[in-house]
């Protein structure tokens, strides 16, 4: 019980207080100044390193899942193989680039001005795949808007009118389409700006303040050991 629950909870409390306490203390303070400096510099560096390892945790899970799928020849296993191939090649290029082995001299350009293999992969595989994948949504936006508009209530109407004005007001096509109206080339951008700076700002501020209050209270619950789901347990 101590090792599995109480120790992690005690560590959460102690380590969680470090950034909060050091935020209020000066590094110039007579006795505690050096300790504050230590906490700010060294602990922060430690955490950056641990965060690096934590980010790679997901990679292990994906590799495990894909290998299992290939071993058991589950439906779609060739796609798991292509996922693994992309991961292994790109990951290996990244690690070799970090160690600066042979032609793998960093992430971007090599000393001779050419592209490093990692950059070649980024430019010709990662970037086009990412852009094409996200641009697919452009084709489905129209049907999504149609479905939203079919819900005939005030809220959906407000959403669509705001979206329409913002899109029309921020593109040359909108200016062209409404330019024939008296003062059309002026009022549309003006209305768009007003929506963005007044009602949109109010909504965004409300969301930001509400979410930040929620996040701060969740932080407090974690530090005080009330919220424990991140440890994979709800034991008391």
């Amino acid at each position, binding site marked *: 019980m101590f090792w599995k629950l109480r120790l992690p909870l005690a560590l959460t409390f102690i380590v*969680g207080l470090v950034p909060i306490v050091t935020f209020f203390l000066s590094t110039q303070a007579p006795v505690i100044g050096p300790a504050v400096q230590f906490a700010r510099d060294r*602990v922060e560096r430690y955490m950056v390193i641990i965060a690096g390892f934590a980010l790679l945790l997901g990679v292990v899970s994906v590799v495990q899942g894909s290998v299992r799928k290939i071993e058991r020849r589950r439906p779609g296993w060739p796609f798991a193989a292509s996922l693994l191939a992309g991961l292994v090649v790109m990951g290996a290029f990244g690690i070799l680039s970090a160690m600066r082995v042979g032609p793998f001299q960093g992430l971007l350009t090599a000393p001779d001005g050419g592209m490093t293999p990692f950059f070649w992969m980024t430019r010709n595989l990662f970037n086009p795949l990412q852009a094409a994948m996200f641009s697919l949504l452009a084709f489905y936006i129209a049907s999504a808007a149609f479905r939203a508009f079919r819900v005939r209530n005030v809220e959906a109407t407000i959403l669509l009118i705001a979206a329409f004005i913002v899109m029309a007001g921020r593109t040359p096509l909108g200016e062209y389409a409404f330019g024939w109206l008296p003062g059309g080339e002026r009022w549309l951008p003006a209305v768009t700006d007003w929506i963005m700076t007044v009602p949109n700002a109010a909504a965004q501020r409300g969301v930001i303040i509400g979410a930040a209050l929620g996040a701060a209270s969740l932080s407090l619950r974690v530090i005080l050991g009330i919220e424990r789901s991140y440890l994979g347990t709800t034991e008391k």
Partner: protein
Amino acid sequence: MSQLIGVWVAAFLTLCIFSFLYRDNPFFRFAESLFAGVSLGYYIGIVAVNTLVPNLINPLFGDFGANAHLLIPLLLGLNLYTRFIPRIAWLARISLAVYIAYYIGINMVQKIQGEIVPQVGSTILHPIGGVMTPVDNLILIVGVLAVLIYFYFSIEHRGAVGAVSRLGVWFLMLGFGAAFGYTVMGRVSLLIGRMNFLFIDLVRITGQAL
């Protein structure tokens, strides 16, 4: 030659993704899984180059004596992976507790000092004057309060509270509408970029190489 191969690979993968517009098919699924794998590999490279090598590997191999203390984060980092060994999976909780606690502590300070205080300040400090008209300032203050009341679930949204909460929903819909408009524009500009690549860059680079 490397550039020519690169643009044709990029063009093939772009067309594989766009083939989904017809229907789900093996080309799309191949490109989709390749994208997932390449993305993970990309982040491995970024983490290795920007985080682990400069902060851990280089200092440890450069001057071990002066940097032996870095063994602490190294062990805590490696300890995270014990979660994949069922018998000692609980050990990972120690590293997880340290890691989560530090960032949640930072998060708390950042949220209060960097978001709540400045946002409340910008809303209420200059109700008359500043860059906006008094009417716009009033709309802004009413909007922020209405949205906050909509998010306040400790009282039932009935009567006057319900009316203000409904007003908050309208403000939220205006905000979501504006965000929707920006998302559409962003995705359409990505599509234009891909079309430019297929119809201009690909043809130009192939023509230059041949």
